[in-house]
């Protein structure tokens, strides 16, 4: 099986064990794999490959885990119709990395079971207000500093907000500092900022 790891532009060093394929004007990085039962381990390995490529290329689009093909021909057939869009998307992320921000907090009163519709709505009002406030005072300022953003529309409690920001590589430290400073205005919540990642969240969808 041949596993597809990423699309790249301007790759300087190809790590050993991987191959570079040029398909309709776009470069794809792939490698041989055997089936791996431990999906968690496979995910970490995949992430490690992608992150090592990120530092070696001008532009990189990570491919999701599981894009495996029987041979190079099959891979090329799958990639060909997407090549044009992928080239454009590579331009969109050139020189940028992804920074993740997650806000976690438990804002509900414990043991609160809504008796009726009105109490259910009252119960839902507080988290809604908090989410709005976070979008306005934490997300919006960070969005202004980023080339693009992706916000998860809803999250499993106690995640209040989860977003990814496309940030130019040189601006990551300042961005993280800003995120932490903005987050410290919410002492009841915890804000974590992770990265720099390859632009996973910006590989698909509209900018």
């Amino acid at each position, binding site marked *: 099986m041949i596993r597809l790891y990423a699309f790249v532009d301007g790759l300087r060093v190809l790590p050993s064990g991987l191959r570079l394929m040029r398909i309709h004007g776009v470069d794809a990085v792939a490698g041989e794999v055997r089936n791996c*039962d*431990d*999906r*968690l*381990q496979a*995910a*970490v390995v995949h*992430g*490690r490959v992608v*992150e090592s490529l990120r530092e070696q290329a001008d532009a990189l689009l990570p491919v999701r885990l599981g894009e495996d093909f029987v041979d190079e021909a099959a891979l090329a057939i799958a990639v060909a119709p997407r090549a044009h869009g992928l080239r454009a998307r590579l331009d969109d992320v050139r020189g940028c990395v992804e*920074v993740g921000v997650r806000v*976690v*907090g438990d804002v509900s009163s414990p043991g609160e079971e*809504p008796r*009726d*519709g*009105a*109490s*259910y*709505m009252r119960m*839902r*009002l507080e988290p*809604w*207000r908090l989410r709005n406030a976070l979008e306005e005072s934490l997300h919006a300022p960070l969005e202004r500093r980023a080339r693009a953003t*992706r*916000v*998860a*529309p*809803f*999250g*499993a*409690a106690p995640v209040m907000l989860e977003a990814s920001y496309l940030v130019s590589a040189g601006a*990551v*430290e300042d961005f*993280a*500092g800003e*995120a*932490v400073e903005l*987050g*410290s205005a*919410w*002492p*009841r*919540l*915890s*804000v*974590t*900022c*992770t*990265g*720099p*990642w390859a632009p996973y*969240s910006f590989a*698909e*969808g*509209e*900018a």
Partner: protein
Amino acid sequence: MRDDPVLTKLLGSTGDLDGVARRAGGAVNAFPSRIGADPETVERGLAQLVLTLVELLRQLMERQALRRMDEGVLTDEEIERMGETFMKLAERMDELKAEFGLEDEDLNLQLGPLGSLL
């Protein structure tokens, strides 16, 4: 896996993170059982997609209702009726998720190209 440079990516944080880290540790331990146990069958993948979309719409509607409630433009009767509806919808969603063995996290993650809409 420890001391892995690909994992040393915490840029900064605020607040009490021990609880968050504990929860993350729990999520990490849950990964193999949740993902490995059930293969990506067509049916489960479809259920995941459909339920994610239903939850998305439910959240959208609930948020609209909460906004109007916050603005004070709803009558007590309307608040009660909407609350009942959303409560029932939420219960039904829990039942459907349980039926397909899906957790909240499973729904949140599958939006793919649709995730940038909100």
